[in-house]
């Protein structure tokens, strides 16, 4: 057994790396080439993306998950049927009659469930009480629409939980309809035939309309059929569906199917892409994989060479979606953190080294994801709340690893693993809003300031959190265990002090750079915007800690307690001010986020009280007195 020890870190790391690599490629297609379809490019929400991202982001928005459980009333041991986001999207777009019956809309609010007369959870009736199908909700569409119209007049911060739920379900239904109207008008029984008929009808149809307008004789049947088509496509184009039709040359604009079909009445050519998708849909509905795959291959080859860069970008994004680097890193951080905590108790150097190695592996995956995202977006690391969580985690892991390198006592490793884990969990929850790579609004569209101000401020957040996390370790180990000996205590306090210095530097520079950005873009260095104020409070708090320490007003334990309050201050600036719903940086607000923030603040205040307990009540100190 003893001879195994030196190998343990290597074996564990290799095992985790192997697990990560094994998830990189999806199981290959059998039958329909869903994986290939997922790589087709399109434009939605202002950016080029693959079908795969449209599928995953839409499902996240509608169902808050990246996969679809079509039998949610079953327990996990009953093997409910799970299908991928891509399979779901293809059904929605090409065979909605099937997709409309899947329980895909998540509804949590009980008032709303009552209003819509939705069934309660009851496995016997195949209901779980949380997920409902289009067919179940659609009858109440008018009711939802009316409620939504009323609620839109209320300021978003003043809406009740029920009202927010109405808006949410309304938006989800709208998105679902957009998807249904992406490739063909919704609920058309035989689209391929209908499209062919329409194309054949166009010349006669236009002639009949001209004749009707000029008061001449015209064929009423042709006129009616044509007018019916026009009305259908007009309705279809109202939905702001994704833009799936590539431009005629690589410099033009992507277009909606509905727009092109409408423009055909003016004599414009119908893009071959629409026929290609119609052929795929026909084959898909008839359950003919060979025909589907052939049509798909034809369409893909028609995109070469004009759209090779677009297809390349789409493929790269599909790979990134599949890789899920932040999820893999999260799992490995947990494992590493557990090992490192164990190493404190049995003082095993092997365990500590294993933990450090695993943190290193998770960090490499985390970094890969971060850089991959930056390259995909062509942006600096932080562009929204989601990416700020990923970057704060990344910065904290760097700091933790540096501390571990210097002190070699397992504390830096726990801080790195803990912060990496927590921030990535936060990121996973923020991703529910849909596309995490959305486009930047005009004033934010500047890589220079995103790369300087935002990076510096988030580094300031990261370091303040690391100081706070180390302080938590100090208190937990000091109060509840005997492992906080004098040397460990001193070294922890020194770490906290060093990190607070570092945090002061970055939060100050970041905050002032924000002021300079504001001065550059609207001539006001400081505007007392809530987010600015939040950042200012972090700077002031860190400066306050340093002055207290320099003036000898606090010592090790005081420093530790102050550093924990730094967690409160930073979480206020990071999330709290966004919940006020005012100012330039307000990104909206969720009940869940507010609840978690409150819980976090309460827990930190609890730790501060623990930290203020007299030394004799600390297990580590009482032994020494």
């Amino acid at each position, binding site marked *: 057994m003893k001879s195994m020890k030196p190998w343990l870190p290597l074996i564990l790391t290799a095992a985790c790396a192997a697990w990560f690599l094994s998830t990189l490629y999806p199981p290959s297609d059998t039958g329909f080439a869903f994986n290939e379809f997922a790589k087709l490019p399109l434009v939605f929400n202002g950016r080029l993306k693959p079908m795969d991202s449209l599928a995953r982001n839409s499902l996240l928005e509608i169902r808050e998950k990246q996969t679809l459980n079509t039998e949610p009333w079953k327990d996990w041991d009953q093997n409910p049927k799970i299908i991928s986001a891509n399979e779901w999207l293809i059904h929605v777009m090409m065979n909605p009659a099937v997709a409309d019956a899947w329980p895909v809309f998540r509804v949590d609010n009980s008032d709303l469930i009552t209003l819509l007369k939705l069934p309660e959870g009851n496995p016997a009736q195949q209901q779980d009480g949380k997920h409902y199908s289009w067919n179940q909700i659609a009858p109440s569409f008018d009711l939802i629409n009316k409620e939504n119209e009323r609620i839109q007049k209320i300021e978003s911060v003043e809406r009740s939980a029920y009202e927010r739920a109405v808006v949410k379900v309304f938006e989800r239904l709208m998105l679902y309809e957009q998807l249904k109207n992406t490739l063909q008008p919704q609920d058309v029984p035989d689209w391929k035939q209908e499209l062919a008929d329409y194309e054949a009808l166009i010349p006669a149809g236009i002639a009949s309309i001209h004749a009707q307008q000029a008061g001449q004789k015209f064929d009423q049947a042709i006129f009616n059929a044509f007018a019916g088509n026009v009305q259908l496509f007009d309705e279809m184009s109202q939905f702001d569906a994704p833009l799936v039709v590539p431009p005629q040359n690589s410099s033009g604009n992507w277009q909606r199917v509905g727009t092109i079909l409408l423009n055909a009445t003016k004599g414009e050519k119908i893009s071959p892409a629409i026929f290609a998708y119609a052929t795929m849909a026909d084959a898909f509905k008839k359950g003919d994989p060979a025909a589907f795959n052939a049509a798909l291959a034809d369409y893909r080859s028609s995109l070469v060479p004009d759209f090779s860069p677009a297809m390349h970008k789409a493929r790269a994004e599909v790979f990134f979606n599949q890789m899920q680097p932040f999820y893999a890193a999260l799992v490995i951080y947990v494992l590493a953190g557990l090992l490192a905590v164990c190493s404190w108790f049995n003082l095993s150097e092997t365990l500590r080294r294993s933990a450090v190695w695993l943190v290193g592996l998770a960090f490499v995956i985390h970094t890969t994801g971060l850089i991959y995202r930056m390259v995909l977006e062509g942006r600096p690391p932080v562009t929204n709340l989601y990416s700020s969580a990923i970057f704060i985690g990344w910065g904290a892991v760097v700091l933790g690893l540096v501390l571990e390198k210097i002190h070699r006592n397992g504390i830096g490793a726990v801080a790195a693993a803990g912060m990496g884990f927590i921030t990535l969990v936060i990121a996973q929850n923020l991703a529910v809003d849909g596309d995490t790579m959305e*486009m930047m609004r005009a004033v934010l569209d500047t890589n220079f300031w995103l790369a300087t101000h935002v990076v510096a401020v988030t580094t300031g957040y990261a370091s303040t959190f690391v100081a706070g996390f180390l302080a938590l370790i100090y208190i937990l180990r000091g109060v509840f265990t005997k492992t906080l000996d004098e040397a460990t205590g001193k070294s922890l306090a*020194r770490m906290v002090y060093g990190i607070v210095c570092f945090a002061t530097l970055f939060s100050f520079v970041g905050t002032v750079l924000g002021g300079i950005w504001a001065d550059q*873009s609207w001539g006001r260095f400081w505007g007392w915007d809530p987010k600015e104020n939040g950042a200012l409070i972090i700077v002031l708090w860190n400066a306050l800690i340093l002055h207290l320490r320099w003036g000898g007003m606090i010592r090790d334990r005081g420093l530790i307690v102050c550093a924990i309050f730094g967690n409160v201050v930073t979480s206020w600036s990071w999330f709290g001010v966004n919940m006020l719903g005012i100012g330039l940086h307000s990104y909206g607000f969720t009940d869940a986020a507010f609840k978690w923030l409150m819980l976090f603040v309460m827990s930190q205040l609890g730790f501060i009280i623990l930290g203020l307990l007299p030394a004799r009540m600390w297990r580590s100190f009482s032994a020494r007195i």
Partner: protein
Amino acid sequence: MRTLVDRLIKIFISLRLTVVLLAFAILLVFIGTLAQVDEGLYNAQARYFRQWIIFGFDLFGHNIPLLLPGGYLIGTMLLLNLVAAHLYRFQLSTKKIGIQLVHSGVILLLVGQLATDMLAHESQIRFVEGETKSYAESMRNYELAFTSDSGTDGEEIVAIAGHQLMNGGDIQNTNLPFTIHVKTFWKNSESSFRAPMMKNEPPLTSNGVASSFDFSLAAETKNPDEKNVPTALIEIIGKNGSLGDWVVSGWTSDDEMVDALRQTYMQQLGAQMTQKIIGQLTQPQSIEANGKKFTFALRPERVYYPFSLELLKATHTVYEGTEIPKDFRSRVQLRNSQTGENREVEISMNHPLRYAGLTFYQYQMDAGQAARQAGRLSSSTLQVVHNPSWLTPYVGCALVALGLVTQFMFHLVGFLSKRRMK
């Protein structure tokens, strides 16, 4: 006496004072942020930050009747504390150089912010494509301007600041051959068209715009995105008696508000009717006194420049297939007859024009598809800022950052070498 001075000095140089001030600053910033939810950004700033002493404050919807130092007091005390500490403890040693740099940077930031607060001036230029303007307008303040033909060299303008009207009573000006008697002044008001064949209240006066429009008092707005539009009922009294009651209002002579009304009427009544109504609304009002014609209007306060700007093109781009704004951009012709300049400049988000001690920022824009569909000409609004101390934060920030880096490097190097010795 000496001991008292000593004691005072001791207080002013003490770190304890710094700590107390920082703690108050944190509390104040927190309260001032929360207050914005109910009171709006502008009012919260005035109540907490641009203030010496705060008598009672609101926290989570409860009024707390406590005294609190305001932003000005905390800033000044911090400044005194820093300067005193520097004077008293100043040592030129390499070990302390970092701290010295940081503190001088903070001093510069505090002084700069105070200077900005007192000296900076913000206004706006709003123009449609093809329009030339040689003045900027205040966003908040109005003035009652009397324009008369001065014969050879154009117009003569006498402007009375809005706050003078607010006080009511009689206003006289040596350049005006009449007295202005303010009968009513509403800081915020509403206006509506007196539709014919409808039951209307009698008009405020039968002269000018009031004969076809009603004006009424409105609650003051606290939303920083909305503005208060004043209306006043004045009587102009010449040497030979009254020249009549007149209504002057921001609704008739503030282009932004006129446009807002135009849009509302457009939706309700269509283009033709709207044009007629807006024509009546903006019809200039004038009186004759001493054989001279005076045109008058309550308009946004103006600052005239010795140069002019013409809006050549306003471009508003959005992301493909969405309404998410991607870019706002104004091409402007800059003409200055004094210097002979006549050049084209481009102003966009994050790329302001700095000229003649002023900075012109791209602010709002009404261009592109949205404007075309509503039948409006493309227009652009520039924010004009005059801030002589705009450079101080840049220098201050650089000093603090440099100081912090120096200081922490000392710490780090010391710490690491100590470890190596062990």
